[in-house]
């Protein structure tokens, strides 16, 4: 009962699953659609529209048993037909123009076995596929509705099987949902679920303070505002480790950072623990590789390099780096918190005799021009995180030769490692390789891993039973409001 209003920082513009990769699409659409699988805040993969699945043919075929008696919001029945339609659409022409298709290219085809059984034929085993089926492009859409209405219409009036059905949408303003009483998992507690798109953190917080919204979801709240929220007795901050990791990557090709000793020295020169404590208010954890603790492939045994300015100085001297040497750090201009972090880093570097200058860039220029073309300074910001929480997602893009995010390095040994884990269907074996990759990159000090940021939610006391989701994909079925 009651209405929950959520502040979300961005309007994805379309509610069609194949059109977008935006987290904030998922934070809303998770309530409208179901996937074959579901992954909740506890990160466990559980059955959803598929009640079970089997990996066949060494991982190149997966058979799903579908849930019976499920209907879409418009009354269409859910069945194998719908699944096939969904994936044909995603992998066909319609999906081609969107960004989601590339995530699912491992699927060759979907075969209907009977009304409630389908086989997915894969080109190659894809260890992350089951996770991917829990979100984004793999959300099941109603075949009849989706083929009858125009694409446009579908973008604006989504129909799924999820716990909430679509009521209205005003571009750039908000979207309203209501409880779908016939949901297979039971009707949600809330009667209405409204989202308002509020980009500006201070505005979202002001709305929260004045009761205009009940919940502010990531990535809205900057660290600097946490104390403001905590000062308000009716509000609280809830956080959980998130997907995003922050690092400064090195130019391993040119300049002083081509020397591994220098890279280690620079890492050791920075007191990351203090940074996390002081600047991030503890809402992050120091990392040793480019992944957080929730990531598949995280190795608790891998310790970050210690803060040791003495050793750093020694290493620098050994590498023949003269005190007063210059490095340039390229960052995104719009990331206020990381901006502070980098300023602190530059101060730490100064302590070991390295003069760091900071160069802000417009985000897209940095991401799509400066980094891919290898025109960065000695260090550059890399913040990264996929909702799949699979280290492969990060590692492959960052370390494999020729990848966009890897402009400087080319390491055949590392390439081989990265390629080797991809077809593995044995989770444990694959995890072992991922650990090895993490160790290997830490060894070579390819980047200065800094921290894994929490997903920070600000909640009004009206809201009960709220469990934060690390990936922002909140399914608000159990939440109640006073």
């Amino acid at each position: 009962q009651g209405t929950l209003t959520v502040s979300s920082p961005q309007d994805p513009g379309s509610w069609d699953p194949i059109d977008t990769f935006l987290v904030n699409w998922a934070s809303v659409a998770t309530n409208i659609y179901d996937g074959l699988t579901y992954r909740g805040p506890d990160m466990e993969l559980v059955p959803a529209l598929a009640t079970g699945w089997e990996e066949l043919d060494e991982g190149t075929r997966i058979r799903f048993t579908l849930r019976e008696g499920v209907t879409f919001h418009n009354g269409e029945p859910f069945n194998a037909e719908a699944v096939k339609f969904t994936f044909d659409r995603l992998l066909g022409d319609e999906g081609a123009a969107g960004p989601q298709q590339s995530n699912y290219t491992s699927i060759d085809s979907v075969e209907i076995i009977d009304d409630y059984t389908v086989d997915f034929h894969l080109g190659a085993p894809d260890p992350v596929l089951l996770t991917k089926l829990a979100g984004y492009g793999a959300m099941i859409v109603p075949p009849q509705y989706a083929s009858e209405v125009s694409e446009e219409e579908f973008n604006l009036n989504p129909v799924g099987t999820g716990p909430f059905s679509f009521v209205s949408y005003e571009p750039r303003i908000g979207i309203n949902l209501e409880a779908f009483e016939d949901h297979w998992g039971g009707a949600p507690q809330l009667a209405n679920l409204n989202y308002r798109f509020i980009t500006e953190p201070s505005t979202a917080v002001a709305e929260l303070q004045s009761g205009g919204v009940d919940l502010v979801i990531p990535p809205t709240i900057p660290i600097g505002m946490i104390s403001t929220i905590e000062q308000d007795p009716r509000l609280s901050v809830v956080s959980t480790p998130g997907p995003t990791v922050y690092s400064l990557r090195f130019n391993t090709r040119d300049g002083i950072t081509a020397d591994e000793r220098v890279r280690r020295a620079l890492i050791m020169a920075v007191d990351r623990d203090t940074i996390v404590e002081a600047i991030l208010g503890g809402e992050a954890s120091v990392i040793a590789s480019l992944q957080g603790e929730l990531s598949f492939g995280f190795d608790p045994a891998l310790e970050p390099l210690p803060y040791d300015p003495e050793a750093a100085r020694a290493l620098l001297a050994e590498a023949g780096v003269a005190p007063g040497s210059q490095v340039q750090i390229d960052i995104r201009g719009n990331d206020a918190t990381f901006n502070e972090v980098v300023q602190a880093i530059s101060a730490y570097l100064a302590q070991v005799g390295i003069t760091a200058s900071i160069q802000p860039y417009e985000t897209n220029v940095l991401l799509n021009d400066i980094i891919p073309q290898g025109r960065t300074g000695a260090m550059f910001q890399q913040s990264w995180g996929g909702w799949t929480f699979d280290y492969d997602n990060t590692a492959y893009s960052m370390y494999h030769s020729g990848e966009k995010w890897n402009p400087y390095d080319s390491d055949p040994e590392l390439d081989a490692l990265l390629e080797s884990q991809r077809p593995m269907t044995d989770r444990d074996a694959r995890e072992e390789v991922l650990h090895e990759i993490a160790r290997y990159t830490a060894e070579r000090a390819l980047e200065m891993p800094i921290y894994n940021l929490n997903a920070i939610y600000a909640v009004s006391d009206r809201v009960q039973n709220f469990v934060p989701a690390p990936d922002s994909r909140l399914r608000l079925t159990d939440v109640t409001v006073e």
Partner: protein
Amino acid sequence: MTGFLFKRLLQAAFVVMVVTLIVAWAVRLTGDPALMLTSGSANVTEADLARIREGLGLNEPFLVQYFNTLAGLFTWDFGRSFVGGTQVSLLIASALPATLALAFASMAVAILISIPLGIRAAVSRGKWADQLIRITSLIGLSFPNFWLATMLVLIFSITLRWLPPSGMSGWQSFIMPALTMGVILTATNVRLVRTTMLEVLQSQYIMVARAKGLSERTVLYKHALRNCAIPLITYMGLQFGGLLGGVVVVERVFNWPGMGSLAFDAVAARDYPVLQSVIMVLSLLIVSVNLLVDIAYGLVDPRIRTE
């Protein structure tokens, strides 16, 4: 006048063409939307990018793309956003009224505050009222608009709970954004009014107006004000043009769904169709405002010939 109008309309068309051409060219210079669209996801191959570009119509020759956008002005079909695929016309149809409403409201606030204050300051030149007005008007300028906006929100929404902190709903939601913008515009306008007023007040015809026994109000607001109107309307025209372009920060702070943030997001995402169309509409508006201002010169001051 008609000949003048005709000429100016031709020129306006030319301006719109040039603006859109520059925008189309400039935005293509700053990055590839296919990259932007996929920058969040891993495993993107060149083939994927090519596929996306094809889907977005980016493989067409530049001029074809450009003229397609331009044609939108006549068909009211501006294509679809790269992000999400919403009809651009839909976005503009919701953003433009929001921006216009806010622009008019802010201008109204600015005019209502600044003209009386500016005149007051000029009349009591050197006295305490003048000093007070001169100094306070600067406060609005020395702090950034987000600062002012946040202060207003703190006072009126959070502490007093009188006004909604954001969004565009009833008339109440206009108060704070219009006030924020108005105060900033006011700072300049007050001083502009004061400066020009000081000069006009020394004129012989003001003396004559007084000798007629006219009330001080009539002397100031009718006889003097009209004579300082030229710089004022020029500057207000510029301000209004700026407001039409949208004031990103203020729109953001008050979560106002206007053209400014629309354009801003479009630039950030290299969303060509949205950006080009928004700019096209904006340039039309701005050119019209400038035209109106130019026409107003002749109306306000008969000695200025419009041609």
